[in-house]
């Protein structure tokens, strides 16, 4: 059960910044993902957290093979996915599916639910022969908790939470092994969010799915994830089990991020150790030298500007952290009961 289904090594994705209309010249690179390595084990959920612009959605796009990496590799069961083409690529696409963030724009308003969920079968006709498709779609609707009778309805006839269920049903249609969830619940209200999270968990148990769960909401990630990776400006700064990251964070950014999460308990108001970061995230076009967090870090020393800290297990800790001065620090973690 512990074999790696996806292995990412030194993944780099840069987008060129161009100037000029006829004679385009590249004036810089947006370093969206800049050297990220991790692995996803069969049946586990890897949470990826970070703020906007840290590269988590770019990571999702590269994992889906929607973007070719600038450098590094993504291996699915030992195959380098960026080197596949033709039939092999099509077979791979069956295995990795995506659930998108915005259930309002990710469903074509002119297609019925039956067509939307059935569309993957058009491309991968080996999964469901033509005659059996409607039956399969109805099964899928039932599976995600929607009424199979509603197969002929259009997306606008559903609420946000129901649309997200349609998106999940579509991702499940081809029986994939990995589902990349890019902020699947952040557009939903609290009461609906919990319903969708329960559904994701139920499906994982039923089909043995592996999830890459990308979100900015730390409590949502904590609830669903076995392991958590924290990203900042295109790099992973800390990786560990859910417990290691939330209870014993060693990277200053993780600590600041956790302490900034509002705790839904007014009695903790005054005894929270709050780390307030100043300023904004620097531009990914020209990230700071050395450690990228140093411009906002209260521990920064000269060495932080000169040496890029590697993501490795540091002294006094049990999980990798990319900080020269990694150190445990107790944080009133999110949502203590």
């Amino acid at each position, binding site marked *: 059960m512990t074999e790696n289904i996806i292995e990412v090594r030194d993944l780099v994705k840069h987008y060129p910044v161009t100037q000029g209309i006829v004679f385009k010249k590249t004036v810089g690179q947006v370093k969206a993902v800049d050297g990220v390595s991790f692995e996803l084990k069969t049946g586990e959920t890897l949470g990826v957290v970070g703020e906007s612009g840290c590269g988590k959605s770019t990571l999702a796009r590269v994992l889906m093979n929607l973007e070719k990496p600038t450098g590094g590799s993504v291996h699915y069961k030992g195959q380098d996915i960026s080197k596949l083409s033709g039939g092999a690529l099509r077979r791979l696409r069956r295995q990795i599916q995506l659930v998108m963030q915005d259930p309002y724009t990710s469903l074509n308003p002119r297609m019925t639910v039956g067509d939307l969920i059935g569309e993957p079968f058009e491309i991968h006709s080996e999964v469901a022969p033509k005659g059996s498709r409607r039956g399969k779609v109805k099964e899928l609707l039932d599976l995600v908790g929607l009424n199979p009778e509603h197969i002929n309805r259009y997306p606008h006839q559903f609420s946000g939470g129901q649309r997200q269920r349609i998106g999940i049903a579509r991702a499940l249609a081809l029986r994939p092994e990995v589902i990349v969830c890019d902020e699947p619940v952040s557009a939903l209200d609290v009461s609906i969010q*919990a319903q969708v999270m329960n559904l994701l968990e139920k499906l994982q148990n039923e089909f043995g799915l592996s999830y890459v769960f990308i979100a900015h909401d730390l409590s949502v990630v904590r609830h669903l994830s076995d392991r958590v990776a924290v990203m900042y400006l295109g790099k992973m700064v800390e990786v560990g089990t859910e417990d290691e990251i939330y209870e014993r964070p060693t990277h200053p950014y993780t600590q600041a991020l956790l302490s900034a*999460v509002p705790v839904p308990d007014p009695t903790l108001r005054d005894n929270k150790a709050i780390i307030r970061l100043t300023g904004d995230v620097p531009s990914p076009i020209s990230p700071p030298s050395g450690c990228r967090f140093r411009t906002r870090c209260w521990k920064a020393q000269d060495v932080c500007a000169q040496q890029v800290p590697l993501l490795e297990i540091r002294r006094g800790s049990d999980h990798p952290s990319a900080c020269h001065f990694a150190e445990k620090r107790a944080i009133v973690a999110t949502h203590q009961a």
Partner: protein
Amino acid sequence: MSDILVSEQSAPGADGSGRPSGRLLEVDDLRVEFRTRDGVAKVINGVTYHVDAGETLAVLGESGSGKSVTAQTIMGILDMPPGFVTGGQVRFHGRDMLTMSAEERRRIRGEGIAMIFQDSLSALNPVFTVGFQIAEQFRIRRGMGRADAKKRAIEMLDQVKIPNAKGRFSNYPHQFSGGMRQRAMIAMSLALDPEVLIADEPTTALDVTVQAQIMDLLGELQRERQMGMILITHDLGVVADVADRIAVMYAGRIVEEADVYDLYAKPAHPYTLGLLDSIPRMDEKGQELRTIKGLPPNLMNIPPGCPFNPRCPMAQPVCREKVPPLLQIGSGRASACHFAEELVNRD
């Protein structure tokens, strides 16, 4: 802060005599509907709340609960039509704003009550500099000259901790980051020193670390100026951090109002309880989250009786027949549930 007089509240100042009722801003049995081609949506069905100087009232609710429409009605920026105010009052210092002349209302906006919005990029005008948009208020409302207005605007930018305020004065909104734009909007709303600030989801579009900065700033400015603040949000975490009192809205009604500590410790409405239960908690990891089943009602077709009854685990026949009024239970709190007492007294 301790006495929430739910039914008696309408008495003082209600005659529109301008007699101060002691309350800064009161919303009293407000009713708003949207008349559309497809039918009438009853968006606000009798909302009553108030805010005093120096306190923070959080209005908590999910999308479609009517929390933003209430705020827009207070500010007088509701689109009419399709919106229609069909009843109730909004009193500022005891005077009903809904019956005032447009000119009188205009004078209250900005100086009496100001508002900050969720989406700072669309709330600021993209073709004018940020500085100009702040200075404009000083020129038009205070009759200052350009140079003086500019000086004051830079002071405001400085107060909201925008680094290099002088240099930033002539930047356009798109040159600011999300957090800075929100700061600029706060500067703009506070320029005329309002007594009440309505913050409509001020941090929803921001990252958590920036959210923490903005909430700190808002709290600081509020304490300095002793403003009353209405914080509209759906985030139970933010509310727990900053609110004094909370009003929970559902389907255009206040279903519960309580002191922040009471509400989190012992919710008196099944909807509030459901909301609190659906937050992922660390001691229940791996377990199924408790959810509120079903969906919020269609506002064109609100179920009879208690609007929450189809989703409520405690619903009884009476809930399908009688609309529970918002009644005081215990000291300083109110709930619109037939079984509020049972809920609060259970262990």
